[in-house]
Each structure stands twice: as C-alpha cells, then as structure tokens.
C-alpha cells in the first residue's frame, strides 16, 4: 500500500513557486528521504503532507485520504517532528507529551502509560518531572520524537530531525528511527546531511528549486549520477589538469572535473582512469581513491554555490 502519493504536486505563494509539480510515492514500511539544499521546497512539501498547508495544484493522497489543512483522519495517523521543537515551556517533560496524547483522543490513563513508555524508549525517563527548558538540545529533540509517537502513528514525518545535534545524540536518534522502521512505521525524513540519508533511507529523492532531480535507492542514485568510484587528486596545476580531464574522458563512463586546485574523477572504475593517465605520463603525485557517496551526487546535481 502507498502511504504517500503525489502527482504534479504544486505550491505557489503569490508569484513564488515553492514546489513545482513533483510526483512522489512512499510505500508502507519504508524510510524515504527528501534531500535538498535550503529553500529547495522540502519543508513546503512536508507541510502539505502533514495537512498544514493547502495544495495549490496537483493531487496529494496520504494514507489513502486526500490531504488538505485540517484533515483529521490523516492527522490522527501521523506523527510530526517539525524543524523547530515547539515544546511547551509551561509544562514538564511528561506533561508535554501526555497532553499531546490527549489531543489524539487518548484518555488520561492511556496517555500517561504511553508517555512513560515513550520516555523510556527515548531514554528520557529520568527527566520526566523536569521543565523542558532544563533539557539539552539532544534531549529536546528526543522529546519531540516521543511527542510525535504519542498518537501511535502509521506515518512519521521528520523535518531535519538531527540538525544541531552532537554526534552521540545523532547516533541515538538514528538508532531509534531504525527501530521504529523495523516495527513497521513508515518514515519520511528531510535532511541535508548525506550520511544521515545513507544510513537511514531505503529510497530517496533529491529536490532542488521545487523539483525532484533524482530518485531511487542510495546505491542506484550514486551509480547513476556519479558512478561508484571516486578519485580525488590534490594540487594539480591548471595546464596539467586540462590534459588529465581530456584523457579521463576517453575512459568509458568516467568524468573528471576541476575542483578548487585539484581534480575529481567519478566513474564506475577510477582505476582505469589512473591507468590511462599513467600510459599518457600524467600520473598525479597525490591522490585519494574512495567510493562515491551521496555528497558527491548532491553537489553534482545542485552545484557548489552557497545557498541562502
């Protein structure tokens, strides 16, 4: 069963087009990642999926229901982790998520039981009685995830869940998200951390300027866009670099590009480029050979210019 199905999904604010007609399918039980630079349209897409923004054009079905602001039948089966924490500073840790459960229709006893269970799950049980302002950034984030789980969601939507967290906190969040996925929760996540997407996502889409540029499993996307293999050469003079790029182009599937004062080669097998250079007497003095990653895909698709 498809949990999210978007066809030509479009969102315009006045004359500004934030989402420019995207097709998206998220299957039940998978973890799907939306990758893109700031302003790419990820959050706008998420807002429409969460019934927090209306659809300008196209169609959007979530959990078999048409998505529009206020569709309670979707919201009841949805857990939302927004970019901002939006925790209630007037309430304790336990009260924050307990009350949220009541919004989902749980009675007092059910909400208390579920809240305590989730505090244990996210390793916050020792903090239950504290005010939320006493929590660290990582704890706050975990509490927001606990809150999103109070309604027992079939779909969990997370907008940049680990931005600003230290490495330990990120590892814990990732582990919990993998546990949830294993328990059958469908997960939609946006991120601009490539390692996060590589670790979590079954499938992903790369978004920029409101459009989807590439989609598939991380492996598929890497192989298709840049090739599995990468060679980074450091400190290559301009004239030499030009000749090396020409030689690399003769190797099937390989592509070299200038990057700073160095050279980067992508392709299914960078070793063959190295051989071709040796044959031509152009072997670089310093190089690193490594597998290509999503970072390479991302930069190759969305460019290296800084985004506001």
């Amino acid at each position, binding site marked *: 069963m498809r949990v999210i199905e978007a066809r030509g999904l479009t969102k315009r604010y006045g004359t500004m087009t934030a989402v420019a007609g995207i097709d998206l399918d998220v299957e039940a039980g998978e973890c799907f990642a939306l990758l893109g630079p700031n302003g790419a349209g990820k959050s706008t897409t998420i807002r429409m999926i969460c019934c927090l923004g209306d659809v300008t054009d196209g*169609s959007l079905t979530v959990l078999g229901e048409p998505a529009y602001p206020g*569709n309670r039948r979707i919201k009841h089966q949805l857990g939302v982790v927004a970019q901002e924490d939006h925790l209630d500073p007037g309430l304790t840790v336990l009260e924050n998520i307990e009350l949220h459960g009541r919004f989902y229709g749980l009675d007092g006893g059910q909400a208390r039981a579920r809240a305590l269970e989730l505090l244990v799950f996210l390793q916050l049980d020792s903090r239950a009685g504290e005010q939320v302002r006493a929590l660290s950034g990582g704890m706050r984030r975990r509490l927001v995830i606990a809150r999103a789980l109070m309604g027992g969601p079939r779909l969990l939507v997370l907008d940049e869940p680990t931005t600003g967290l230290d490495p330990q906190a990120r590892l814990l969040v990732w582990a919990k998200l993998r546990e949830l996925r294993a328990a059958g929760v469908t997960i939609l996540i946006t991120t601009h951390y490539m390692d996060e997407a590589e670790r979590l996502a079954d499938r992903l889409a790369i978004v920029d300027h409101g459009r989807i540029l590439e989609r598939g499993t991380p492996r598929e996307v890497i192989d298709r866009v840049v090739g599995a293999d990468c060679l980074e050469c450091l400190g290559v003079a301009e004239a030499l670099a030009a000749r090396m790029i020409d030689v690399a182009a003769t190797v099937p599937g390989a592509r070299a590009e200038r990057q700073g004062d160095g050279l980067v080669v992508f392709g299914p097998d960078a070793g063959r480029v190295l051989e071709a250079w040796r044959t031509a007497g152009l072997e670089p003095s310093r190089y690193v050979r490594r597998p290509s990653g999503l970072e390479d895909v991302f930069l190759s698709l969305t460019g290296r210019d800084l985004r506001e």
Partner: protein
Amino acid sequence: MSADAASAVPALGAEARAGAGLGWQMPRFNHRAFMVARRDFLAWAKYYRSSVLLNFGEPLTNLLALGFGLGTYVAKMNGDPFVDFIGPGLLAVTAMNAVTFDVTFEAYDRLNQNGIYQAMIAAPLSAAEIVGGEIVWEAARSLLYGAVFFSVLLVLGLVHSWWSLLLPLPLVAAGVLFACPGLLVATFAKNHEQLFYYFTLAVTPMFLFSGVFFPLAHLPAAVRLLIDVTPLFHVVNIVRALVLGTVGPGLWGDAAWVCAYCLALAALPARALARRLTT
C-alpha cells in the same frame, strides 16, 4: 483538490475550508478544546500564587486608595457611598484585566515564540478548537479572579444583596467577551509593542469611562452613546446591580448586549488563527 475533498468528506468540510480566506467561524467546545484549556490550567498551576497576587493586588489598591481614600471627599453616587459604588465596578475590571493581559501575551507567545499552537495544529486539533479551549480557560480565570475579589468585597462589607449569587453569569460572559478580541489582537500583532496599542487605545479607555468610577448620567449624549457600545459598561451595570441589589428590568437590556457581543466576538478569532497556522 480541496473542493473535491470537502465534498467527499462532509464531516470535515468546514475545517477543510478553514485554512483559506477571511470569514467567520464559531469556536468549538469539544473534548479536544477542553484539553487546550487543561494545558493552560497545568501551566497556570505552576505559578498560581504570584498570578493571583498580581491580579488581585492592583484592584485592591484601587479600591483602598480610591474607595476609602478619595471616597471620603466624594459625594454619594446614585445614593451609595463612593466605595460601595466602585467596588462592583472594580470587580468587573478585575475580570477584564485577568482575561485580557493573559490571553493577549500568552496567545502572542504561543503563536510567535514557543510554537505551542503550531504543535497543537500538527496534532488533530483545529484552530476553532484551540480558540474554544482558550475561551473556556479565560472564562474560568474570569470566574476565579472575580471570586477572589468578591471575597474582599464581602469581608469589607460591600456586598449588599443575595443577587450576588448570580455573579458567575456576568463573569463567564466577561471571560468570553475579553478573550476573543484579545486572541484576535494577538493573531495580528507583529510584536509585543503592538499589543500595547490595544491596551492603550481600547482597554484603558474602557476602564476609565465604563461607569466604574462615576455614573454616566451627566455626560453629553454623544459620549454616552459611545460608551453604550463598549462591552465593559454593560458588564459593570450587571455586576453592580447584582452586588448592590438594584436589579431592575433595565438589566435585560445589558444582558442582551453582553450576549450579542459574546456571539459576535466569538466568531472572529478562529479563521484568523487558522490563516496564521496553515499556509
């Protein structure tokens, strides 16, 4: 898309359209709205001592300084000693202030600073339910702070009638009456300073000119007409009549005004809030 959805799911049609356009929408008072009120109660319960003291201190000071201080030099008002006259008026003001200052600052912060409303709307809550919950809570505050001030009037011997048992009615009405415009102002304000426009231009003039401190009989007809359309004036009339036992058929007119205000003002905040929360 939205239009199709609204017709396919009639039970949710009204809410589907709530996100777009200007318009009227009555608040909803269901179990989810009561959970919003419960949230406010839980937060209030953590600082209620200072809150009660604060909301209680100012009108008490007014009563003592003006009623017993200034009042000694002031002639009788409509046949009542000055302190007996302003006591019930200050009771109505206590209710107005307890509601107004809470709802405007709190709603502004929930919308613009801590994102409490954003978290609520992401759960299965609608703007109409959030507004409903805030109205319930403010009505409770009005009752509570009114009751505390009433006990002072009682101790000072300023309560003259068993009609006072009906005071919960105007107090609850005051809760609705002042919660709704406060919510609306909070929805439109761009910063805290803009909230003070509302206090300075609407709340303070009402406080001074709604018959709390002096009867309006000697004012020019045009001014009386203006005061007649302000809600606090009618609440003051009702509260004073109940406390002093001067209940007459004219009170039905005040009651009708107050009910009309409650209905009209209650329809305003939900759409405005929905527009802020769903874009």
